[in-house]
């Protein structure tokens, strides 16, 4: 469905743009319907730049991105609108995606004019409620509320609902749960899992390896703009081949394994009698 072919992105930096900084170098990957591809990397690895290029928020320096065989670089006008009807993004900070002056559902309402001008009020309302229910929000509880009256988890799920209104086929989810609390995080993750079961392709961008592992089929480990390792998620996590992936995995804090340093646990086990 989505295909990246030797995609690179470089920025001109320095006072007169004299130097080039390669943010993404020669990245190729594919996303099929119902597949979750995780882009995992630390800051500066180029993971978000890739997401932005897929959403056409950033231009591609070389290489191509195609959706169903069509190069997205040349899309304009109604064909670009058609592309956005298939591909949408949700980002890290749900709080800043809403205009605090307006009610939160305005973010959904704004889609009606360009995409569904023929729907009458009742059918639009039904469609709205269906997509809110798909993200497990109670329409009665969230419609007509201002952003500050809703929690981060609710706002974030509403943005996913907005993407679903369009019957999209590909979702670019850039760090969408990093800002949520542990107790609501997992709900949003489970939601992505359910959407994937319904055939949605997802590009899941994260710096958190445990989150990248939970729902993804394919893991792509990025380092300084380059793909260092890619493969089925289980394989990459169980038998990482690249030393970078290994060191990354060893640094993740986990509840069932303790960090080690020079062969000793960092934290001494508690004394007897606990």
């Amino acid at each position, binding site marked *: 469905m989505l295909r990246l072919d030797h995609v690179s992105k470089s920025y001109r930096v320095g006072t007169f743009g004299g130097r080039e900084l390669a943010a993404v170098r020669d990245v190729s990957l594919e996303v099929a319907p119902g597949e979750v591809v995780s882009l995992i990397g*630390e*800051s500066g690895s180029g993971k978000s730049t890739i997401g932005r290029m897929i959403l056409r928020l950033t231009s591609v320096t070389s290489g191509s991105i195609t959706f169903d065989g069509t190069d997205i670089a040349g899309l304009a006008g109604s064909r670009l609108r058609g592309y956005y009807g298939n591909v949408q993004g949700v980002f890290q900070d749900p709080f800043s995606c809403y205009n605090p002056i307006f009610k939160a559902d305005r973010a959904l309402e704004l889609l009606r004019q360009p995409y569904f001008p023929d729907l009458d009020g009742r059918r639009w309302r039904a469609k709205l409620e269906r997509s809110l229910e798909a993200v497990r929000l109670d329409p009665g509880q969230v419609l007509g509320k201002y952003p500050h009256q809703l*929690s*981060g*988890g609710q706002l974030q799920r509403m943005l996913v609902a907005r993407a679903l209104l369009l019957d999209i086929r590909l979702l670019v989810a850039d760090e969408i749960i990093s800002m949520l*609390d*542990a*107790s*609501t*995080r*997992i*709900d949003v*993750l*489970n939601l992505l*899992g359910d959407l994937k079961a319904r055939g949605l392709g997802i590009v899941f961008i994260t*710096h958190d*390896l*445990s*989150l990248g*592992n*939970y*729902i993804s089929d394919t893991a792509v480990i990025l380092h300084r703009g380059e793909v260092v390792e890619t493969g089925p*998620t*289980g394989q990459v*996590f*169980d038998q990482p081949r690249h030393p970078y992936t290994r*060191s*990354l*995995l060893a*640094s*993740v*804090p*986990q*509840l*069932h394994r*303790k*960090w080690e*340093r020079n062969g000793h646990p*960092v*934290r001494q*086990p*508690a004394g007897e*009698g*606990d």
Partner: protein
Amino acid sequence: MSPVTLKVDNLQVWYRTLRGDVQALDGVSFTVGDGELVGLAGESGCGKSTLGKSLIRLDGRMRHVGGTVELDGKELPIGDSERMNGFRFKEVSIIPQYAMSAMNPTRRIGRMVAELLESRGVRFEGQLEELLRRLELVGLDPEVLERYPIELSGGMKQRMVMVISTLLNPSLLVADEVTSALDVSNQKAVAEALVDFRDRHYVKSTIIITHDLSLVYQIADSIIVMYAGKLAEKAPTDTLVHAPRHPYTRMLIGALPEVGVRYDTKRLEGIPGSPPSLLDPPKGCRFRDRCPLAFDKCAEEPPFREVAPDHAVACWKAF
């Protein structure tokens, strides 16, 4: 039990707002032992940062309503900012949540440290040798003292602030979300440095405030879990993670995805609902509305009581 560095007794700190008082910290009591590294965990809005801040500086909106804080046997005048000046930096120090932007951008770091020390009546020259030793310990080149903060990466800034905060060997260090904004490899380095500082007696005791239970599991001796302005549970780290007694702690741990756990083989569950508003907190147990075990008794507020040595819980079902 080892001698106690910090003793917090029934501490209440409220925020003044236009709509009334937000009871962010409502009757919190605990102790931190000599050389103990305590993790303070909870979700946003549970009062964990308020607790950390109130041990060093109440900002304009915060009001000390009741309770006492004792450090090394002396009472901390937390409601009196002037008198607290005698304690800050020397006795209590904080690595603030905004550590990345805590340094003066217009000064070279070395000069900033010198000014800071002199404002506390300490000569910079006398501390320089120690400063250089500690920079080396956290893996920073002495040359950073000649640099401006903007020239350092996030992880370097975080380590620099850590060295500055602990330079005068305070009894208590409060580290507020010090690793949250860092990549995993930097995160590990900073967390390990916190352990090193304790082991080398640069600080006596440390409170690490975080939302990330798996991080404090790696380094803390004991963990406190807060919920809606109150303590829910406190226990030695292994006990809290492997045998928690409070339903909230259990559900919180159950909701953490781990490397190796997959959605299709083991679906984790979140905690339905959201924490109560602290403007007018409900009577009784504050977790009651989200708790699957709630029963009649929960309309009464559960005390924070020891159920085993060093293991205290605020839940009727745990007693």
